[in-house]
């Protein structure tokens, strides 16, 4: 079902695919022109050729570091989401708990992750990934909590009436109505949180902890003047973010297939 009613008239499908590719190629060509042909770029901006070179040459170690960062982001995403879902369920069920949680969530929402990262890294020691995972989990909590709580409140009165008239128990109502209604909202929250988790896990590496991961590598190679390798690691970071985003977007799309009416 490819329904893009607005763009359908303006552009045929191949244009939608080709347009961003063309933009990418143009940017690459300009980049190459400025760095390699005209040689007017600052030293910190390496040639795209050099970046690809490093990317291929160091693929093994970059992949290893990607696994570390992606693992931290995933751990934070899973744990943060589970806690957020549990709290959202409590808040949706008991009004007083909602009142107690609201200021707490607002507080977490405005905490700059960067501000507490050095503290957490110190707290859990230089050899533990836990501080980084913790940072990712905190960052994930708010978008998941807010979306799930909203989703749990979207059941329509007529559906509640139907289930009450069918003498459904509280648990049955949750299973056949509340949960399926909230599912698309949960996955929207997860999609937003997945990008946040990767950013948080990566940024946390700038502030200490073990000497591995994409963020650590970017920081050290940038400082030591190996700009092309630093950029190759940035590409690795982008790849992690893309995978997280694409997987959660796909899940979201699957879940919201049957939500209108």
């Amino acid at each position, binding site marked *: 079902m490819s329904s893009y009613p607005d763009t359908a008239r303006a552009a045929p499908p191949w244009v939608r695919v080709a347009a961003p590719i063309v933009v990418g190629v143009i940017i690459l060509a300009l980049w190459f022109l400025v760095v390699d042909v005209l040689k007017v770029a600052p030293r910190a901006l390496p040639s795209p050729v050099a970046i690809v070179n490093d990317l291929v040459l160091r693929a093994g170690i970059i992949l290893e570091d990607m696994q570390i960062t992606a693992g931290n982001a995933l751990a934070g995403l899973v744990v943060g989401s589970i806690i957020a879902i549990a709290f959202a369920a409590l808040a949706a069920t008991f009004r007083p708990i909602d009142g107690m949680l609201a200021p707490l969530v607002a507080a977490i929402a405005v905490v700059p992750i960067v501000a507490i990262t050095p503290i957490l890294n110190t707290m859990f020691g230089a050899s533990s990934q836990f501080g980084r995972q913790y940072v990712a989990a905190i960052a994930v909590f708010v978008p998941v909590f807010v979306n799930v709580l909203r989703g749990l409140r979207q059941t*329509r009165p007529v*559906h509640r*009436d*139907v289930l009450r*008239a*069918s003498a459904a128990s509280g648990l049955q109502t949750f299973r056949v109505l509340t949960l399926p209604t909230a599912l698309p909202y949960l996955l929207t929250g997860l999609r937003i949180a997945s990008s946040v988790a990767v950013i948080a896990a990566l940024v946390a590496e700038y502030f200490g902890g073990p000497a591995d991961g994409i963020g650590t590598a970017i920081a050290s190679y940038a400082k030591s003047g190996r700009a092309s390798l630093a950029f190759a690691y940035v590409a690795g970071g982008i790849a992690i973010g893309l995978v997280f985003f694409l997987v959660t977007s796909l899940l979201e799309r699957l879940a919201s297939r049957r939500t*209108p009416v």
Partner: protein
Amino acid sequence: MTATTELAVRVTGVGKTFPTKAGDVVALTGVDLTVAAGEFVSLIGPSGCGKSTLLRLIADLDGASSGSLEIFGKPAKQARIDQDYGIAFQQAGLLPWRTVAGNIELPLELHGMAKRARAARVAELAELVGLSDFVTRYPDQLSGGMQQRVAIARALAAQPRLLLMDEPFGALDEMTREYLQGELTRIADDTGAAVVFVTHSIPEAVFLSDRVVVMSPRPGRITDILDMTLGGTRDDALRESPKYFERVTAVREALHGAPVERANER
């Protein structure tokens, strides 16, 4: 009606008040009504006359503030738990992530009926409402009239002896509406279920009902109960008959005779 006829619904001295910030709003007061088993009774009246409220009280979706309700001799809550009634609303209220079959079998699934028995019953019900070819479709693939038929099939799933309907055809176009009215009388005859039908359409009430209960607002109460005595078959010939027009006039007069403003809905 003889005294020995079993009663589907007995409403005695029922009142309903909704507390609001501006003070209590009396939605219903002093309502007495009985519906015999197998009888088709319509509740008609202008907005705010409490007809939907009364239906919700019978269904135990809301609690009465005073008086008592009995469904087949049981308190309304027990009747709800025992699935003695099925209900359909103006909105079909289908779960969009379930197929037609999944929606029809919902009440059966909730009561732990085995999967195979459920499938057989779904096939039966889909046949009854003429949707056998659509059981694997999703609600958003159906027209409004078809969705409403699914809702009626769902209401009938647990083989209730009482069908409660809150303006189920209110959102449909006139053609679909008349067609489904005919279907409903056929289904009611087939199943032998009593029906309490809320509507604000006079022709609809007259066409469908054995008795029409006329209500009026502020406070919501019953002002008149009219026997239709239109006889057995409800078909399009009936819609043309003088007897039918006579009843329509009678209900209209009963509605407008009430010492309140007239129905202003259509």
